[in-house]
């Protein structure tokens, strides 16, 4: 494993020997993965390589058959999305996971509603906070009290992102965050990822888009048939190397780390 951080720094996330079986199928087969503060790690692989499964385990949507998860060096029991959120793990799902009939503030605070001291919902405050965070992400955001089903794909994405970063996020899982977006919105997401990284947040980026991966990631982890077949600093590999890992599960035979290549 390439550890380009100082040895003293504790990994934010350590997933050790994670296995997930569905009947006889091993969707995830002994995967070990770590993530450091302020690092963007691309998680790559074919559809069905087990990357979504692995991410769902970390976000609490799925319980592993075997293996351990440590957060900040401490053993963590993540049995539900609620547990994950309590540990500062936020997830932006590819499906966005929005309740279509509710408006933007209700979605933003879903499961973590703000309440008045009488225990009823504080919709006024939730609306103000939502305006604040949504306008920061997209100054043109309108129609905050419409059901989110009537909003554009970009606006819906903004709500999903806002929901992940509004609360005290430490670990962010992004599943294909730019797949449904136009160019300007993609640029916004890229900028945001860099900003969050600079704030010391660890980001796991699941993506098929090589351009995004090479632009944003510090490291890539490639999965193939439920196994982690390679974890490399982005400077050490080319797009062809990564594609070889994704498709064949191994690096080209003549591969040498590019950073060392230049030294020689």
């Amino acid at each position, binding site marked *: 494993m390439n550890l380009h951080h100082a040895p003293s720094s504790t990994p934010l996330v350590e997933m050790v020997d994670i296995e997930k079986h569905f009947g006889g199928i091993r969707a995830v087969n002994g995967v070990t993965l770590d993530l450091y503060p302020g690092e963007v790690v691309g998680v790559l692989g074919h559809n069905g390589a087990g990357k979504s499964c692995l991410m769902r385990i970390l976000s609490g949507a799925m319980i592993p058959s075997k293996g351990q998860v440590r957060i900040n060096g401490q053993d963590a029991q993540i049995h539900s*999305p*609620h547990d994950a959120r309590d540990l500062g793990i936020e997830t932006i799902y590819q499906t966005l996971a929005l309740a279509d*009939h509710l408006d933007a503030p209700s979605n933003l605070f*879903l499961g973590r509603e703000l*309440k008045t001291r009488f225990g009823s919902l504080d919709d006024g405050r939730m609306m103000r906070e939502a305006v604040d965070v949504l306008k920061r992400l997209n100054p043109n955001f309108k129609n905050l009290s419409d059901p989110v089903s009537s909003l554009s794909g970009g606006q819906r994405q903004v709500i999903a992102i806002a929901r992940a970063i509004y609360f005290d996020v430490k670990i962010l899982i992004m599943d294909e965050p730019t797949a449904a977006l136009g160019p300007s919105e993609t640029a916004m997401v890229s900028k945001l990822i860099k900003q969050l990284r600079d704030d010391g947040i660890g980001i796991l980026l699941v993506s098929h888009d090589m351009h995004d991966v090479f632009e944003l990631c510090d490291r890539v982890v490639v999965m193939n048939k439920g196994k982690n077949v390679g974890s490399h600093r982005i400077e050490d590999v080319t797009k062809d190397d990564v594609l070889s890992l994704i498709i064949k599960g191994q690096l080209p035979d003549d591969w040498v780390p590019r950073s060392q290549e230049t030294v020689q």
Partner: protein
Amino acid sequence: MAETDRSPPLVGWNLKLSASSFHKLSALFTLACLIIVFSFGNPAFFSINNGLTVLLQTAVIGLLGIGMTLVIITGGIDLSVGSVLALSGTVTGLCVKAGIPVAPSMAIGVCVGAACGLFNGFVITKMRITPFVATLGMMLIARGVALQLTGAAPISRLGEAFGVLGNGSLFRIIEKGANGFPKVVFPGIPYPVILLAIVAVAAAYLLNRRQIGRHIYATGSNEEAARLSGVAVDRTKMIAYTLSGALAGLSGNVLMSRLITAQPNEGVMYELDAIAAAVIGGASLMGGIGNISGTMIGAFIIGVLRNGLNMAGVSAFIQQILIGFIVILAVYIDQIRNRR
């Protein structure tokens, strides 16, 4: 939130109505039309006395409809409310017969209803049986238990106190007439109507202002999203079904109290009236949409229609036919609106 009750004030009245307020207005318009038509048909229709009768008749359907609305918003359905109503009423009747005072007896009846609802919720969330099948099962179970407990015979002579909830009223004004006989100046607001109003306000508060209400909408809107957002989806559904069962129990007590007899055969097909009230009021059987005020309007449309047609001498069979068409029409209008 999508629901109108709290959508922002119509800024500058730009005629941009939210979907559900459009539906509510059209339902309200229908109700007004019905009242006007029946008033022309029969002068006795538009009177305080008859108005109170309609309110009284609507109370039971209204209470069932409120519970049904909660369940429908979660994306489910509760077919058991008619039977649970009968079971709860009979249990209360049996308790009174056994010498337990009326108030605790009624509390026991409501608890039995809540227990039936909780069982529904358990079967649906833990055994993963669809709401339609689970509550269909409960419909048969509750009716069967009610009939078994009583040997299918009504329990009568339950005492005057048992009839107070269903027959009593508030602000009843009686004057002594010139001839010495009492003359009813104002018949008073029947207790069932007051109960309905309290329950409706409480349920609307629950749905719109409490976390559980928000979670009920979220669950029906997108169950997977709600779960991933940390909403305890199973718990939310259990609460909705339990409340529906408890309200069925409450309406059972109201109905049996009005008859001063516990009838194990009461409430057959009431679940359909409750569903009709919710659907006419704008609730979507796909979940995520619906509100209490709409359901109240729906319940009153059914109540007014029944009462008006009765006074016009239209047979009960024709009434069923008409209500059937109205349900279809309400859903059809809703679909057209959504397609726009």
